[in-house]
């Protein structure tokens, strides 16, 4: 389909061709599993000739240790391998193909210069146990990235060990735990808003705290009264995203900080939405003590189908001694690892975190510079408000506060009343060539559609998406039935998720074993109650 973008600001430009990406592509048709392409005796690999290397005696590896049955890996040629994974790639949507407004995930364009940098042998082919004098370039990169993240957050020191946002959360909460214990003031609870990401309460539990949830106000912000009631001398921290998951800036954040610090608690910043305020405002200035950043969101590193990411943790001075060791420190003209950190909570990663992601983030930092990063936040917020302006006549805003920051949450309440749920709107978008927004999150908005356009999308793309959303709303108004069939242009139609959970098939089995495939998890007894 072609969007004419008649109502948008991009009128007069060449309209965006929003083509359902998989429709009509023969190579998007069903692709067998790599195991089903296997032919005994075929192979892609070649092994170097051992030459005159001595044979090993049979007892070099005793019989009790040796494998007793062949490893059933696929037997394919390199051509088979390349065609198979290329065809699988064609069955996958991505930022490189089109608009991906998945709220809270910041699916912005990923610059290719960063990929090229991370692939340099001087980064990709470094062993993490090489002595510091051999890796001065890597340590310099880490030190300079740390300095920039401290500047941007208004905080004092960072660790790069956490591999993702949730990993940063756990690290931050363990730091907070150590801080209270060092003051001989152990604490029991962590308070979070009801709009929080699911990782927040899960991390709280892993760090050994109990969760107290506070309700949002009618404006979609932290309700100060409820927060005050929830706080007490046993509260270790208050954890919040700002802008919050509704895309709204917590105007009262300074007062929140006062209340939390007033009971001796620490203020934790979930950096999932940092893109909105990059260079415009700093968590440290708002009173936050601990921040994790998601470099795969804010610093444009590719999301990799679900990872790898990087979740560095940046903290205020009074928490710096608790950071995981080792940390990079300046040493004369060079850098070294400092391991002797008696107050450190210890390691949270086997090595130095996802260093390859940090290289990409550093390239992004250099490319944009301070001014560019501010522009990132400005365009992200402009795009979100522009898109909201185009959609709000057809879809209700979850909470009626404006302007929004980098994202907004619509409710498909009105469409649901006509028979089309949020999920139907999402699936209909697939047939119109777009990745859907995040659906059914945050939990406090009925039929939530969480839209984050990011700064890297043009007004023409936003208009084409808005046109598709409006057309779907009109379709729901007229006759919701066709929306229930969507998607019809994707490689597969709607999938039976209940069946997948009921009869778990989590791996392929050779035909000879296929009757054994598919264990029913419910046959193993009722799901466990989590231990406490």
């Amino acid at each position, binding site marked *: 389909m072609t969007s004419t973008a008649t109502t948008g600001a991009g009128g007069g430009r060449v309209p965006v061709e929003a083509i359902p990406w998989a429709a009509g592509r023969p190579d998007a048709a*069903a692709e067998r599993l790599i195991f089903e392409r296997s032919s005994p005796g075929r192979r892609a690999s070649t092994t170097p000739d051992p030459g005159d290397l001595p044979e090993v005696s049979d007892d070099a590896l005793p019989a009790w240790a040796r494998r007793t049955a062949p490893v059933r890996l696929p037997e394919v040629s390199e051509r088979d391998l390349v065609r198979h994974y290329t065809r699988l790639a064609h069955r996958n949507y991505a930022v490189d193909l089109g608009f991906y407004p998945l709220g809270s995930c910041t699916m912005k364009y990923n610059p290719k210069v960063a990929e090229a940098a991370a692939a340099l042998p001087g980064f990709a082919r470094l062993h993490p146990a090489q002595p510091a004098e051999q890796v001065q370039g890597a340590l310099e990169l880490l030190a300079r990235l740390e300095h920039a993240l401290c500047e941007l957050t208004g905080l004092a020191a960072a660790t790069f060990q956490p591999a993702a946002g949730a990993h940063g959360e756990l690290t931050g909460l363990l730091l907070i*735990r150590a801080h209270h214990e060092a003051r001989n003031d152990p604490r029991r609870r962590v308070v979070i808003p009801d709009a929080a990401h699911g990782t927040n309460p899960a991390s709280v539990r892993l760090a050994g705290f109990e969760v107290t949830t506070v309700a949002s106000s009618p404006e979609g912000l932290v309700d100060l009264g409820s927060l005050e009631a929830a706080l007490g001398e046993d509260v270790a921290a208050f954890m919040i995203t700002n802008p919050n998951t509704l895309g709204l800036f917590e105007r009262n954040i300074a007062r929140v900080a006062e209340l939390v610090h007033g009971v001796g608690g620490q203020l934790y910043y979930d950096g999932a939405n940092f893109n909105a305020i990059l260079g415009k405002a700093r968590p440290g200035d708002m009173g936050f003590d601990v921040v994790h950043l998601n470099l795969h969101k804010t610093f444009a590193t590719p999301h990799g189908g679900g990872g790898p990411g990087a979740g560095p943790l940046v903290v205020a001075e009074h928490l710096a001694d608790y950071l995981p060791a080792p940390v990079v420190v300046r040493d004369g003209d060079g850098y070294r690892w400092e391991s002797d950190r008696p107050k450190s909570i210890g390691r949270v990663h086997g090595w130095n975190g996802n260093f*390859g992601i940090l290289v990409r983030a550093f390239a992004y930092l250099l490319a944009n510079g301070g001014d560019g990063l501010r522009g990132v936040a400005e365009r992200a*917020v*402009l795009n979100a408000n522009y898109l909201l302006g185009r959609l709000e006549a057809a879809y209700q805003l979850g909470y009626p506060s404006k302007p929004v920051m980098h994202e907004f949450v619509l409710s498909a309440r009105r469409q649901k009343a006509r028979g089309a749920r949020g999920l139907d709107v999402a699936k209909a978008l697939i047939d119109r060539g777009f990745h859907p927004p995040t659906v059914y999150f945050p939990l406090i908005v009925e039929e939530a559609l969480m839209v984050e356009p990011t700064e*890297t999308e043009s007004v023409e793309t936003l208009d084409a998406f808005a046109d598709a959303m409006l057309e779907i709303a009109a379709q729901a108004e007229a006759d919701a039935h066709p929306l229930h069939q969507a*998607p019809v242009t994707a490689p597969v139609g709607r999938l039976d998720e209940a069946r997948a959970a009921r009869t778990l098939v989590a791996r392929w089995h050779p035909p000879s074993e296929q009757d054994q495939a598919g264990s029913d998890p419910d046959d193993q007894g009722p799901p466990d109650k989590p231990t406490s």
Partner: protein
Amino acid sequence: MSYQPHTSEDVDRMLASLGLDDVDQLFEPIPAELRAPAGLDLPRPHAEQEVAAELARLAGRNRHLDELTCFLGAGVYDHYVPAAVWYLAGRGEFATSYTPYQPEMSQGVLQALFEYQTLVSELTGLEVSNASLYDGASAVAEAATMAVAATRRSELLVSAAVAPRVRELLDTYSQGLDIKLVEVGALDGHTDLEEARGKAGDQTAAVLLAQPNFFGVVEDVRAAAELAHGVGARLLVTFDPLSAGLLEPPGRLGADIVVGEGQTLGNHPNFGGPAFGFLACRPEDVRRLPGRLVGETVDTSGRRGYVLTLQAREQHIRREKATSNICTNQTLNAIAAAVYLSWLGPTGLEELGELCLRLARYAADRLAAIPGVSLAFPDQPFVKEFVVRLPADPAEVCRRLVDRGLLGGLPLAGLAPGLADGLLVAVTERRTKADVDRLAEATAAVLADLRGEAGTRGDLGGAPAGGGKPGGGAAGAGDGRRDGEEVAR
């Protein structure tokens, strides 16, 4: 340089549609006193070629594994990464997508992960694999959490032959969890199962060991499984998946949860990350599995397809009652592993294992033939990594080997009791017989130099100080480096 497509005309028109004339008006919800100060100390914007040049400069200040001949392992190994692996895994359709929340447009990632799960199941000998974790060390902590939940017990018997870095991470994670870590010593390079038997009891949730272990020694997994099961505990094994060409998968020997570091499967060393962790378990533990899991199903027309499944375990549904907090994982590295293993095939996997074994055996024999050098555990089987004792400080020896273009291995001072003179040496298929000869000759020459210098000075020169810090220092490899620097002073 900017990745925002907006022309100034676009910005004006978009603002006009909102009835605004300045983008700063959109930031009105941020109180003025909370606006960032001017003059933050950040880089200026750079043109792309300037970015490329600066990154190349930094990369050029590192001595990498194409330049040094690497015998350093200790959990990250210099295995060959075939050209097809990142040619395919690096494709934009995989790399620039996110977690497959919309399965109809994410079948590529989902099917690749389903294949990955099958491959991990084959290598570990356990039925169910999740879709990856951060790394091998954090995977051990996730496995420990599972075992504690499954047994409703709190003690974890941890072998001292598990890598110090992994034990340090477990110690960190245990600060928030109801897990008590009990160390079981190593005897002649392998886990002392008699000591474990004495410490196991009705509070033991699990026994943890590494296969091969930190010293490269192959452990008797079957005996450990019998011991663990005898007290109603789980056996957790952290496994080098590439050793499956030679070794029986731990799951077939009785291990209940098998985890490990996936770097060896098609991932570059990357200074320690990104690679990935894997975790496989028995079907009865699947409800406690952390992280994403892909399952097979059908669509409305009966076509086969794949979805994220059993999501009721996960943080976005179960919140504080989730089995783990993990959300973002290491999917792309897991896809690379699937490509790598499919490239390798069963014959390639076995040949690679045999080649590493032959090279490592040859290296051990060559090094042990140097006067004063001996194998630390001469009677123990290994597959690609082993410990030698040196008659001089290993960190100093390694420093001098670097001058000859060799990364000799990991000095063990501070990382394992009684091994201050130990050097952990890894040999992969990327090494040749000639490389091993060069390592042996260079080591002999360096040791001779050190002996000569000691003779001149009339002291013990580079002789090891003896008695490294017991139980591993605060930072694993970091300690190794520090020791090296101390000697260098």
